[in-house]
């Protein structure tokens, strides 16, 4: 197992910059997820770590050893492709044995290790089957088997659950996490699905337009988004972002809204000020709640019933906001409400650069 260090990595395809100036370190044994929409550079970054793509500049180190321009075959890493890429002219056993044959392991040991891996993934009854007849989940398991059999330094996975049916996805998600915990392998996992990312990862790197917007644990990313992009990308429904006309001084903890019927918001103290019209308030729907004398007035336009909770769409003087409340309270469309939130739950952003303001309050 290994630590992966990526420094100042850049990749451009002609004019198009796929990855710009990314630096991060993946700890030994960590489950690291790169999350972002398609075309954000996450797969390109993964392929550069694998050696399937060569960077334009920058450096990649695998266990302190520089591998930036080393061919994929010499890096001792495993890669699970989105479409599995099982060799169609070989059966399951031969697919699993293929990486071992390359390094000249005696055939008795190959047989033993193939069967061991097959048992671990519960595909031992399929060993002599052709790969073209397998179900999506079994193909996925064979692809994983081919990855773990060589006991490589790290696993790289490019949306490995993307090609599976929704029902299989949850199951494989748990299996993958279980497998990672058993073999404690450094894993880099690329996905566009935030639920997968949240459920499996130790840390997540949220990418957009070739830039890492934020790198942190799932709860850091959820509770303390570093940019407006992350706030809007993570969470379903995403964080409410309301643009306020106020300016903000460093250390200020109260914002008096100028609109009619508006009150005074309490917010975490920031160490940085914002000019008027650039202040953006971010509050998650489950933290923005109707309250008798809340400072923010609004009118409910839509009520969506979700089971234990319901989502209210509320028109406020500063834009549309969503509120997630328990279904036990009843709300009607057209009803006037006042909203409030706990100061430490709010995030503040500067619209001019889209970044969160550094605050002194720690989020719970």
């Amino acid at each position, binding site marked *: 197992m290994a630590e992966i260090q990526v420094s100042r990595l850049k990749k451009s395809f002609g004019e198009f910059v796929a990855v710009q100036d990314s630096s991060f370190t993946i700890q030994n044994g960590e489950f690291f997820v790169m999350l972002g929409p398609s075309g954000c550079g996450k797969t390109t970054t993964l392929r550069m770590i*694998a*050696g*399937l793509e060569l960077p334009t500049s920058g450096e990649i180190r695998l266990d302190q050893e520089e591998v930036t321009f080393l*061919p*994929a*075959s010499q890096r*001792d*890493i*495993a*890669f699970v*492709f989105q*479409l*599995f*890429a*099982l*060799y*169609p*002219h070989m059966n399951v056993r031969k697919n699993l044995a*293929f*990486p071992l044959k*390359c*390094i000249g392991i005696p055939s008795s040991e190959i047989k033993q290790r193939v069967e061991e891996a097959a048992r671990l993934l519960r595909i031992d009854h399929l060993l002599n089957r052709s*790969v*073209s*007849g397998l179900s*999506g989940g079994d*193909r996925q398991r064979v692809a994983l088997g*081919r990855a773990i059999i*060589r006991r490589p330094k790290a696993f790289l996975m490019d949306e490995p659950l993307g*090609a599976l049916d929704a029902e299989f996805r949850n199951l494989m998600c748990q299996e993958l996490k279980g497998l990672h915990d058993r073999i404690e392998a450094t894993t880099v996992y690329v996905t566009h699905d935030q639920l997968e990312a949240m459920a499996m990862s130790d840390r997540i790197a949220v990418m957009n337009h070739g830039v890492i917007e934020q790198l942190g644990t799932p709860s850091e990313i959820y509770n303390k988004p570093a940019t407006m992009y992350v706030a809007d990308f993570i969470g379903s429904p995403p964080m409410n972002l309301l643009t306020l006309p106020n300016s903000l001084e460093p250390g200020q903890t109260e914002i008096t809204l100028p609109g009619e019927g508006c009150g005074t918001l309490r917010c975490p103290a920031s160490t940085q000020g914002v000019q008027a019209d650039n202040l953006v308030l971010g509050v998650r729907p489950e933290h923005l709640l109707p309250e008798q004398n809340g400072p923010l007035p609004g009118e409910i336009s839509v009520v969506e019933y979700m089971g234990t909770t319901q989502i209210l769409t509320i028109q406020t003087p500063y834009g549309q906001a969503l509120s997630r409340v328990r279904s036990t309270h009843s709300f009607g469309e057209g009803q006037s409400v006042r909203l409030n939130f706990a100061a430490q739950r709010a995030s503040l952003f500067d619209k001019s650069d889209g970044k969160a303001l550094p605050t002194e309050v720690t989020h719970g």
Partner: protein
Amino acid sequence: MSSAPPHEKPWGKRLAAGLVILYALVSIIPLIWIFLTGFKSPQDSISYPPKMVFSPTMEGYVNVFTTRTRQTPEYMETLPPPETWYDELVRSRSMVIAGPSKFGQRFLNSIIIGFGSTFLSVFLGTLAAYAFSRFKIPLKDDLMFFILSTRMMPPIAVAIPIFLMYRELGLADTHLGMILLYTAVNISLAVWLLKGFIDEIPREYEEAAMIDGYSRFQSFRKVVLPQATTGIAATAIFCLIFSWNEYAFALLLTSGTAQTAPPFIPTIIGEGGLDWPAVAAGATLFLVPIVFFTIMLRKHLLRGITFGAVRK
């Protein structure tokens, strides 16, 4: 019952089937004529109307493989009794076998040159097609067009320059010369056909193999090649059919050592009258290898690329 039973085929399909059968018959009649003529006696072969029922003889086949001399009845008396059936057959025509004809050797030339150039075209074509399919090559489209452009005029249009060039280079009437020539003609077809097939093979397979520790060339050999079998088989058949049947260049550039069967077979006509059964026998034998080769590769042509291991 006024309406047709449901299992009866509609008229359109019947008509189409009828046309296909008619076309097949028209195509196969010359082949049947050649095949039957090979077993006729010279008299039967030129009778009009053509004889459909006749007593078969191996005379044509014996004649195509031998040279014979006509002898006087007195000389024939002095010979010991014939040792083999073909000796007997030839003597019944007041002739004796003087030796083997050049047919066997010309046939062998055809095999060496036909299969040699096919192998070379497919080998080079596969490597080139893989490179064009996978690597960033400067001016790739222009190069592909240049390769295609070599087929834009009939090859025989450059017969004179090639004839002069081959004479200067000492390639005229050599196996190597003919193999190179046919390869040059076939290679553009091979590259274009195979590039299409290799483009269809997802890159993930080789990438997976390279991740698994294999070099680029090993990945190509162990993962790409087995999946390109269909394309390689189809290309090989096209290349072989061209080089096997090629007549004009063979006539122009070969006369002895490297002469192939196509220019040789018509020369049988000149030896001792119009020996149609011998010509037909030669033509029949000439068809055998290519039919055999096609049937042998048919399995690969029909099997198609194995789908399913990569989900699209």
